[in-house]
C-alpha cells in the first residue's frame, strides 16, 4: 500500500508534537534526519512496559523479572528480523556513535592485548578506509584507532556535489586495507552507497566492512545478511524510537572474535579478583543495566514502520526528495548538494543560499514554523570541500506532506530578497 496523502494524514494523528503551533504557525518538522519524532504507539508501549513489567532483566528470579526479560529478548528478535540479522548479532548501545566506538575501542583493545585473531589485528602499514563525506561519528573513532594501532587512515574524496564514487573507493581498497567504514546513506547529501559492491571488494582483500546505517535503516528496507557487512550501527531516535538506545550489529564471526569495549555486570560468567571470563555475544557487549524500556519502544517503532511498509516509506520519501530538489533548484541563487536529479537519494535535501548564511536561512524558516537544520551536520570535512561552513538541510519522514515541502520551498524563495541579496 503506497503512503498517499490520506494515509500520511492518518499517521500524523499519532504524532502529538506535530499538531503544535510554533511561532504562530503550524509546526512543519523537516528535521527528522537529526532526530525523528515518536508516534503514540511507541510512547504507549514504553509506558505499558514500565507500568506493568519493569524489572531488572536476566538477573532476578521473580515474576516481573521474567516478564521483563521476555519483553526484552522479544524486542531483540524484532529488531534483528527488521534488519536481516539473527538475534545474537544485535546488541544495544547508547546510540549509533557508541556502537561505532564500541567497535573501534574493541579493536584497539584486541590489538593492545596481543593474540587477537589475524583479521582483527592492525599494525603500522595497515589501512583504515573511510570517505570524506562521513559523519564525525564514523570518522573520529577511526582516527583514534589509527593513532592507537599505528595504522593509516585513508579516505575517498568527494566531488563538487559532495558525492564519492565506487570507482574511487575500489581504487583505494588494497591488500593493506583492513577496515572499510562508510555511511549507507549520507546525512548531508542523501547519497546511497553501493554496499554490496564495496563489501565484495573489501572482503576480497580480507578487510572488514563497518556500515554506518543511521540514515538507511529508518528510511528503507535493509538486510545486513544480504549486504554481507561485518558490523553496522544505527540509532533508535532516528527511526521513530526512543533516545538512549543504539544498535550494534556484529556478524556472528566478528562477534565471537571481538573483546568487549565495556565490562561490568551481566556480561560475565566468572569473576575473581584476578581474572574475568566473559559471556558470548550479544550479552558480552552489554555491560550493566541495559535500556530495556527503550528496547521495547524500539521494537514498537519497528512494528509501526513495518505496518506502513518500508518500501512505501522509501517511495514516499523519494517523491518528497524529488519535489524538494526540483523546487529548490528552480530558485535563483540556491544550490542543492548531493546526487544529480534522477539518482537515488534519501528523503532530504541540503542546500546553499548564495549570499545568505545557513543560520539566517534557518531563522527565516523558523519564524514561519518550519524546522530545518543548519550547520555542518557533523560533517566538517565534507562542508570544507563544498566551500561553506554550513548548509541548510530539510529532511522528511513518514508524516511529511507535499504541502509541507512546498511551504518550505516557498519560504526559501523569500530569503534572499529579505536579506537584500541581488540575484
Amino acid at each position, binding site marked *: 500500500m503506497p503512503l498517499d496523502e490520506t494515509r500520511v494524514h492518518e499517521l500524523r494523528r499519532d504524532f502529538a508534537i506535530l499538531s503544535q503551533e510554533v511561532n504562530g504557525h503550524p509546526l512543519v518538522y523537516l528535521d527528522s534526519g537529526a532526530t525523528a519524532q515518536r508516534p503514540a504507539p511507541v510512547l504507549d508501549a514504553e509506558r505499558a512496559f514500565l507500568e506493568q513489567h519493569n524489572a531488572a532483566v536476566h538477573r532476578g528470579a521473580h515474576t516481573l523479572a521474567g516478564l521483563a526479560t521476555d519483553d526484552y529478548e522479544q524486542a531483540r528478535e524484532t529488531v534483528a528480523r527488521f534488519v536481516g540479522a539473527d538475534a545474537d548479532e544485535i546488541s544495544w548501545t547508547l546510540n549509533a556513535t557508541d556502537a561505532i566506538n564500541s567497535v573501534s575501542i574493541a579493536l584497539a583493545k584486541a590489538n593492545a592485548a596481543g593474540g587477537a585473531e589475524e583479521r582483527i589485528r592492525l599494525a603500522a602499514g595497515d589501512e583504515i578506509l573511510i570517505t570524506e563525506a562521513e559523519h564525525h561519528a564514523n570518522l573520529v573513532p577511526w582516527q583514534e584507532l589509527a593513532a592507537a594501532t599505528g595504522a593509516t587512515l585513508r579516505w575517498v574524496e568527494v566531488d563538487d556535489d559532495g558525492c564519492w564514487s565506487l570507482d574511487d573507493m575500489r581504487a583505494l581498497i588494497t591488500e593493506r586495507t583492513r577496515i572499510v567504514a562508510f555511511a549507507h546513506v549520507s546525512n548531508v547529501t542523501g547519497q546511497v552507497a553501493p554496499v554490496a559492491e564495496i563489501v565484495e571488494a573489501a572482503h576480497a582483500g580480507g578487510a572488514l566492512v563497518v556500515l554506518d546505517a543511521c540514515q538507511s535503516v529508518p528510511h528503507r528496507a535493509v538486510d545486513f545478511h544480504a549486504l554481507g557487512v561485518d558490523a553496522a550501527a544505527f540509532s533508535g531516535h532516528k527511526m521513530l524510537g526512543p533516545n538512549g538506545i543504539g544498535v550494534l550489529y556484529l556478524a556472528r564471526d566478528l562477534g565471537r572474535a571481538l573483546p568487549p569495549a565495556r565490562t561490568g555486570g551481566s556480561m560475565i560468567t566468572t569473576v575473581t579478583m584476578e581474572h574475568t571470563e566473559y*559471556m558470548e555475544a550479544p550479552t558480552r557487549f552489554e555491560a550493566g543495566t541495559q535500556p530495556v524500556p527503550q528496547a521495547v519502544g524500539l521494537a514498537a517503532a519497528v512494528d509501526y514502520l513495518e505496518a506502513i511498509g518500508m518500501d512505501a516509506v522509501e517511495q514516499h520519501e523519494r517523491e518528497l526528495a524529488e519535489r524538494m530538489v526540483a523546487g529548490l533548484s528552480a530558485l535563483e541563487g540556491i544550490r542543492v548538494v548531493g546526487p544529480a536529479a534522477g539518482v537515488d537519494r534519501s528523503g532530504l535535501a541540503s542546500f546553499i543560499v548564495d549570499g545568505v548564511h545557513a543560520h539566517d536561512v534557518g531563522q527565516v524558516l523558523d519564524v514561519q514554523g518550519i524546522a530545518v537544520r543548519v550547520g555542518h551536520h557533523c560533517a566538517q570535512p565534507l562542508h570544507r570541500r563544498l566551500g561553506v561552513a554550513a548548509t541548510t538541510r530539510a529532511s522528511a519522514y513518514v508524516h511529511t506532506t507535499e504541502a509541507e515541502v512546498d511551504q518550505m520551498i516557498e519560504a526559501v524563495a523569500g530569503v534572499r530578497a529579505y536579506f537584500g541579496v541581488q540575484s
Partner: protein
Amino acid sequence: MSGALDGLYQQLILEHAKRRDGEGLIDDFDAERFDRNPTCGDEIRMRIKVEDGIITGFGWEGDGCSISQASASVLAGIAPGLMRDDLETRIDAFRTLMRSRGTGEGDEELLEDAVAFAGVSKFPMRVKCAMLSWTALEGCLQQIDAGQTDAGQPDAQ
C-alpha cells in the same frame, strides 16, 4: 503458598535434591564438562565414560538450587547403561518437555523420574536450572565426538 509451588517442587524433586544420586567425580573418564548458569550461579562439573557407545560411567559435582541438583541426580538414574543415541533422544525429549510451558507431560518410558520436572516448564525462569545437567551431558557427548577431553566452556546463557 504450597499450592502454587507444588507443581514445581514435586516431592520426587525435593527427594532427589537431597539424595544427589551419582554425586562424586569418577576418575576414569572420557569426557569432562563444567557448565554454569551465569544468571543464578548454578554450576555443575560432570564426567562420563563411554565404552562401545554405551555410557558406563557417570559422576557429577555441583552447586545450585534444588531444581538443578535434583535434575543431575535424576539424570544419574537414567544415563548409565544407555547407548549414546538413545541418550540423545532422551535429552531431546527432556528439552521438549521443558519448553512446553506447562502443556507437556513427558513420556515416562523415556524420561523415567524426570517426568516429575513437567511442572518446571510452567516457570520459564527455572527451565535453565533443570536443563543445566542435561546440557552438560550433551556437551560431554559432543566432546567425545570431537575427540577432546578438556573441560568445556562456561555456558553463555
